């Protein structure tokens, strides 16, 4: 674990010239979960951009701008890492919002230029939550190290989405 962290640090330090560019191809992840609850109830849990508390690793959400496009939030994860995000679009009528990550350490999430959309659809007592993300890998140049590759980025985001959606389902269906 220690070795991985140090290796990642060394790579970041040695990052070559085109530090502002990104990897050659954008990746996408789409995950969904079906929840035995009305869409309004699910939206009430996840529809506030200023409260990401339903996602287990998030300890604290602090931000400004409410649910208006351009609003900001900083997620503090358990263990202290922070992720800065901004709200791109908010559509309460279709229970959907899109956001982007403005700052994240690739050691926390190995991605760059990340954008995502959360959306709730449903009928009656059942709903579906879709979480989809678009991002480049954490390493901007050719020949990335394994931990900053396209595959690593997809795996990390898929893991967050899967755990988050499954946790959301358990939380809502468990009545907590």
């Amino acid at each position, binding site marked *: 674990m220690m070795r991985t962290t140090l290796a990642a640090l060394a790579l970041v330090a040695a990052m070559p*010239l*085109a530090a*502002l*560019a990104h990897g*050659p*191809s*954008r990746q*996408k992840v789409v995950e969904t979960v079906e929840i035995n609850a009305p869409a309004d109830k699910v939206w009430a849990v996840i529809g506030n951009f200023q409260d990401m508390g339903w996602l287990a690793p998030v300890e604290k959400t602090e931000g400004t701008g409410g649910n208006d496009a351009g609003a900001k939030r900083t997620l503090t994860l358990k263990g202290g890492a922070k992720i800065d995000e901004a709200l*791109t*679009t908010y559509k309460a009528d279709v229970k959907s919002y*899109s956001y*982007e990550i403005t700052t994240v350490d690739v050691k926390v999430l190995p991605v760059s230029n990340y*954008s995502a*959309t959360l959306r709730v659809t449903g009928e009656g007592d059942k709903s579906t939550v879709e979480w*989809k993300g*678009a991002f480049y890998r954490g390493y901007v*140049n*050719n020949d990335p190290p394994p931990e900053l590759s396209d595959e690593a980025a997809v795996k990390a985001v898929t893991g967050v989405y899967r755990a988050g959606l499954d946790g959301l389902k358990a939380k809502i269906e468990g009545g907590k």
Partner: protein
Amino acid sequence: MALGIAVAGVSCAASCAIADAPRFAYVTNQGSETVSVVDLETFKVTATIPVPGKPAGVAVSPVQDRVYVTCPDTHDVAVIDTKVNAVVVRWPAGKGPLGIAVQPVTGRVFVADWYGTFVRVLDPSGGNVLSEIAVGQSPSGIAISSDSTRALTADRDSDTVSMFGATSGGPKSAVAVGGHPFGMTLSGDGRRAYTANVTSDDVSVIDVAAQAVVATIAVGRRPYAVALSQTRAFVTDQYGGTVSVIDLASLKKTNTIEACDHPEGINYDASRDVVYVACWFDNKLIRIDAETLKITGSVAAGDGPRAFGDFIK
């Protein structure tokens, strides 16, 4: 003979326009590593060409039956023969080939190196490098004037547009634009150039002769590329999921079209007065009426269509 053509041109404006119309769109699907060939009359996919290497940039050749596709993963340009709809040869193209354009008269292929600071000019007869022209950092979109004299690059990481003689490579100049210009589009008369500025969420309008920005127009979040009709500019806003419409006379944004998730490559088809937009997340190509601004067609592409460049022919 010449007279006959002229007379025909006068007497059948509508049908002659269709006769000259682009017939197909060539959509690079980066995820599925294919190019979808879309018949623009029926708006259906008529062929899917395997193109390994995460194809992204595209440029149709106005002088040959060819479409050139950049493949950043395999660091080369795939040459598609449109008579057989297959890749017939691949040419090495540095470390980060992305933006690509064809010089209309000579058919020469200009390839920007995303990981470098230059444009390579390739000989269409065999793909050998004729010259390397130094530009800004991470050159992305390339535009070449229809008279073939001038070339421009959007230099993403230096926030500039480089301009140079398309044949000579010089004299060179750079104009400061917005944050991280990506798409690069030149008007038909070559007088004005437009960049989509990814991080400043705006479009820079350049007076080419004066080498100066004459307007900066706010658009949606994360603009990617610009297409031009006679009267309007259409801008894909990746994160916004919209197409921003700009009136070219007033240089003001007039409309926002709800398009799709992550709209990217965009081209204007003058003969049909429509724009085509590649929807990266939704895996489709959509058609928008350039007058009514309504979506009038949609066709499934492969995974992750980007279509960065001139993709209709």
